[in-house]
């Protein structure tokens, strides 16, 4: 995945420390998606992915920062969102991305589902934390 954080408009950021922050993050992403002119279906998919990743960051990563920005690439416009936490990290990313796998009592569909909902998906994780980056492109 390209380093979109370096391109495009400077990101808007929001720190997530409780569940109402997740709602705020969702609203931030929705606003950007609307401004970018994403179709209703794409908006909904992106916002839902952001909801999953924001909540993962809160529940599994102990909170973190969401950054979102509009990005351009080869004539198309999209929305880039980054979720960075300083939590324990994901020991086995492959496993975490398996449908139905959860270390808690969730459905285990958040991470894998979010990947299916967006166009680009990158994940880095280590003992110092986890960063997930996603992009949803407009037409």
């Amino acid at each position, binding site marked *: 995945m390209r380093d979109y954080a370096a391109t495009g408009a400077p990101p808007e950021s929001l720190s997530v420390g409780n569940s109402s922050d997740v709602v705020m993050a969702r609203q931030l992403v929705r606003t950007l998606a609307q401004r970018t002119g994403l179709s209703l279906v794409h908006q*909904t998919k992106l916002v839902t992915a952001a909801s999953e990743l924001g909540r993962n960051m809160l529940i599994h990563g102990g909170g973190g920062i969401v950054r979102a920005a509009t990005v351009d690439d080869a004539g198309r416009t999209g929305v880039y969102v980054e979720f960075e936490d300083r939590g324990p990290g994901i020991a086995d990313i492959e496993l975490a991305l398996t449908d139905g796998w959860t270390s808690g009592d969730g*459905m285990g*569909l958040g991470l894998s589902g979010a990947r*299916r909902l967006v166009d680009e998906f990158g994940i880095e994780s280590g003992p110092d934390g986890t960063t997930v980056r996603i992009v949803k492109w407009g037409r």
Partner: protein
Amino acid sequence: MPVATDSNTQRLVETLTARRDVFVGQWADTVGEALQGRLSAAELGRELGELYEAVLQGLASGGLSGRGEAFGEVRSLLIELSRNRARQGFTPTETARSVFALKEVLEPSLTGDAEGARVYLQLARLLDDLGLLTAEAYVRTREEIISSQAEQLLELSTPVVKLWDGVVGVPLVGTLDSARTQVVMEKLLQTLVDSDSTHAIIDITGVPTVDTQVAQHLLKTVLAARMMGAQCTISGIRPQIAQTIVALGIEFGDVPTIASLSDALRQAVKEVAQEADDDVRGLL
């Protein structure tokens, strides 16, 4: 903190006792003026009179520390006062001033000589402490009021209505978090019982995002309704939500999902009629 000597409190107690009526009267006037008649003079007089008496008792039993044992009665009166003020919509400043005003009243009478000034300072410290206590109690009450309002709002925003004979509807609006789900579930089950209904329709037209958490909560609600023997349908799944749910990988299993609330209602009404028919047939 300097420990109050007996002579300190003695002088105070004497002065406060001797001029009780004058001081209470002035105190009530000062406070009444600040509250601009929003509290009746009689009520204020009674309230502050009681408080004055309790402060006097506290001082007499040898204390100048507001958090000490001698001032237990004062503290409970103050908490009561703050709670009332908070409920009546007075500001925290107005509330704390009810206590601080006593300083203004006593200052001219006590600070005539050096000994009196020293006593006054100690009393002032006590009253400052009691003023803070008032503010704390005020804030606590406001918090209670706010959280109970939030609860009421939650209740109001999750209406459960009887749509038809035997059919209950739950039009959800907004986010479905754990607290909300709990309220919805309890209200749904209660309404099912109260209205003797066998069908429930949960409408999610007003839910902007259906993610794994919302889905899990929906399924939990459906399960609860089923355990009461009710049939449950989820309606109001807009096309973009349907596509998103599929991509996420969420399956509602054997829970029927119907696009519009009216279709879901039509279906439920038909089933209720069918059941009634079956019941009659069973009796024959």
